[in-house]
């Protein structure tokens, strides 16, 4: 090899000696003469095809580079794709320019010296060639030492199902040891067999079976193409059967995905609504500033993240949750003591007064933090996503479901197992009777309002992880929360949980069918009709006191 290289270089020097253009031809003659005497290795032949600068030849060269995989093949193909591959037909030289602009000999990878850059011209490529280059690059990386790269390359081949990658694919399949890569390679091979008319029917049938097992969107579109184009009846019917199997499978996963979204939406709704249910249940007043308690919780998270040193950032939520509970709870108690306390006999006016409070709180936050969205980041354990079958699950939403379950259980414990909870339930059922039994209803009102608002603050921490933290944050959830309470009824947290689950699920399951807005309208009409049957909600308290 080296000797022929030296000879070639010598020939160049020789050619350069005749610098005059008129004498170029003589140089070529000399080189040609030399080439015939030198051992013509495969790479030379391949590179020579570029010199013609004709599309069929170039394509052939690409295929050969992919098959032979000489060390510099990837660099050459990349250069070709970027229009950086240069030829000097006169000097019978193929070279490429690196991204940095250095001119390298395509064969040796050494810098080309002394040659006039103007003598080179670019090798032309068209779109067909570009896709050929992509396929060739894919098969080159099939042999990459890094298994992750090989995996990605196999996926690439699966997507392009380019028959030209088949030899490289099969070569790699023979020596592959990583089971994941083997599976990916088999799939890629199946995709080629399945789509190629020249493959044997047996190969195609087993390929279709492999694709059916994969059963995702990509496999579906591949098999769809076969079912339409295949001429062999056996292949065609197998494809049709596989297609319907995949359809069913995808539809099932789609439903599962929507269920997941629905459960996720429900958990958010539950967090936002459960505090409202408590305050409405105990006091019979709806706190229109409830959404702002959620907003305060989200801003507490923001403040915690801004103030904590970087070493503690991973634990920011551990600080944010109690802080949000305390901040929102304290504001809630202040509202109860300063405003709502005076309006118990006028529940309708409580709506207006608390609406006023919500305007003030929104404007206060806007004055303090600005009207723009604040960035709250996910701690590492809450970012990212993972897949279960055809389900894609984002980690932050999973944790929010966990959080809402914990909050729900915690509140049930407070209500069922503490003296405060007992008194609160007593006031909810019959305020006068409870007062007669020595319960300080004013104190219970205050604490219940604080508790409900504090839980709203925790909801804000959760929302800060999935939504923009802005002064209007609470507004987006408040009406749905009202619906949950109206639907679920008061005095029983199970009603709230059930209401949240139903509204969250119905929203997300109706969304793909009739659109998000129509879904909400249908739901609203349903709730209006529903409260015809049960004017006090699904889980209404029974007894004389609550029947008007």
């Amino acid at each position, binding site marked *: 090899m080296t000797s022929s290289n030296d000879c070639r270089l010598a020939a160049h020097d020789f050619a350069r000696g005749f610098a005059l253009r008129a004498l170029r031809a003589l140089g070529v003659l000399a080189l040609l003469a030399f080439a015939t005497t030198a051992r013509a290795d495969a790479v030379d032949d391949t590179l020579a095809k570029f010199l013609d600068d004709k599309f069929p030849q170039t394509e052939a060269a690409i295929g050969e580079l992919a098959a032979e995989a000489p060390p510099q093949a990837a660099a050459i193909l990349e250069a070709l794709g970027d229009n950086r591959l240069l030829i000097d037909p006169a000097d019978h030289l193929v070279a490429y320019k690196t991204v940095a602009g250095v001119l390298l000999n395509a064969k040796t990878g050494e810098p080309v010296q002394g040659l006039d850059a103007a003598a080179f011209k670019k090798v032309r490529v068209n779109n067909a060639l570009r896709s050929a280059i992509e396929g060739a690059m894919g098969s080159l990386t099939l042999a990459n030492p890094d298994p992750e790269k090989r995996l990605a390359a196999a996926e690439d081949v699966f997507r392009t199902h380019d028959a030209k990658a088949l030899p490289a694919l099969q070569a790699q399949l023979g020596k592959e040891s990583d089971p994941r890569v083997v599976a990916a390679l088999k799939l890629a091979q199946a995709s080629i067999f399945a789509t190629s008319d020249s493959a044997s029917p047996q190969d195609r049938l087993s390929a279709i079976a492999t694709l059916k097992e994969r059963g995702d969107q990509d496999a579906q579109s591949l098999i769809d193409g076969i079912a339409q184009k295949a001429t062999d009846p056996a292949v065609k019917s197998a494809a049709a059967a596989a297609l319907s199997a995949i359809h069913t499978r995808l539809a099932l996963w789609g439903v599962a995905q929507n269920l997941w979204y629905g459960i996720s939406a429900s958990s958010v709704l539950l967090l936002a609504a459960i505090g409202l249910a408590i305050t409405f249940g105990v006091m019979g007043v709806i706190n229109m500033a409830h959404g702002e308690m959620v907003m305060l919780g989200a801003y507490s998270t923001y403040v915690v993240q801004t103030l904590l040193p970087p070493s503690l950032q991973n634990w920011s939520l551990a600080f944010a949750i109690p802080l949000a509970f305390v901040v929102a709870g304290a504001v809630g108690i202040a509202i109860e003591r300063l405003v709502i306390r005076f309006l118990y*006999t006028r529940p309708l006016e409580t709506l207006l007064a608390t609406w006023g409070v*919500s305007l003030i709180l929104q404007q206060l936050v806007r004055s303090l933090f600005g009207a723009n969205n604040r960035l709250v980041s996910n701690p590492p354990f809450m970012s990212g996503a993972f897949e279960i079958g055809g389900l894609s699950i984002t980690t932050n939403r999973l944790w929010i479901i966990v959080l809402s379950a914990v909050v729900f259980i915690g509140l049930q414990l407070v209500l069922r197992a503490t003296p405060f909870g007992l008194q609160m339930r007593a006031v909810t059922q019959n305020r006068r*009777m409870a007062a007669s039994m020595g319960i300080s*209803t004013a104190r219970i009102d205050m604490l219940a309002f604080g508790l409900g608002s504090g839980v709203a603050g925790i909801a804000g921490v959760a929302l800060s992880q999935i939504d923009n933290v802005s002064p209007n944050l609470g507004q987006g959830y408040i009406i749905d929360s009202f619906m949950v309470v109206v639907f679920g009824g008061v005095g029983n947290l199970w009603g709230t949980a059930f209401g949240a689950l139903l509204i969250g699920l119905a929203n997300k399951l109706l969304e793909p069918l009739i659109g998000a807005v129509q879904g909400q*309208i249908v739901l*609203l009409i349903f709730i209006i009709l529903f409260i015809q049957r049960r004017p006090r909600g699904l889980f209404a308290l029974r007894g004389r006191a609550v029947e008007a």
Partner: protein
Amino acid sequence: MSARLDHLGLGFVAILIVAAILVPLLSLVVSPDSAFYLPPYLVQLLGKYLCYAILAVALDLVWGYCGILSLGHGAFFALGGYAMGMYLMRQIGTRGVYANPILPDFMVFLNWKELPVAWWGFNWFPYAMLMVVLVPGLLALAFGWFAFRSRVTGVYLSIITQAMTFALFKEFFRNDFGFGGNNGLTDFKDLLGFSLQAASTKAALFSASAIALILAYAVSRAIIGSKYGKALMAVRDAESRMRFIGYRVENYKLFAFVVSAIIAGIAGALYVPQVGIINPSEFAPANSIEAAIWVAVGGRGTLIGAAIGAIAVNFAKTYFTGAFPEYWLYGLGLLFVLGTLFLPKGLLGLALRGSEPKPREVVSVDAVEEGAEP
């Protein structure tokens, strides 16, 4: 309804009649150099206040006399406005950007070929006016029929009405819904052949608004003064008791609700040509709640108090949003809080205080039965 309040009502009507005559004169006849000259933009602003006042009277009819705090009256207002807007849209004709004689610009922009059925007939003024009344009225009828029959009352009802306007708010935002999407309807040219830009049209719209306010007051006053009105107030104060006596409570409520929605729709129809635009933000729940605070500030259960409250609050809003935009929301919020806390009878209640024997405090029977402390 005290005699004193009726006297005030007569004065209120008299002022409106004077305004309906005087404002056009000051705007059109008086020379622009005079100190008494009313520029058209001011006439337009006053006309807008009057439309809000009509809405407030409508809301007071159901809230003050029937105990239904509707947080969705903005929806009826906006529907009336949209019906008028559709008429004005069709009047633009070939003067639009795309010069399509039939389709409004936004439909041409969306590449629609045919006028949707909902838009048919809106080029004919009487039909459009019928829709101004029918659409809010029918919505109120359907909504109220379900809600009152199922005995949804109090806070529940307020929340459901808020959800209603919220649903419409979202629906009207959609381009596909066919009412201009989030841009709404705008760029109007003329009404019944009169240019909306002309000072005379603006003055005429002001007078029309003043007359509509008088009529809204008169109709509401007639309802309240009748035997039916007495029953309505009894429903407000003791719904269960009325039901047990044998009254069809839901029918009383439904009638008041539908009349109120129609008045609100008419207010919206007068509002749109004066402000020159109608878009989905009119459905925003916040608008409806603001209307409730006008009524509360002015004094609910007085009708004229509601109208005065609407004008006063909106005047303050115009002033403060211009002078101290940062602080207007604080002001409005405080108005909600302090108004409900310290002015349960509103400004008018404050003015009337001491002039009549203190009425016995009526605590809703329902509230007592639900366990609220008196």
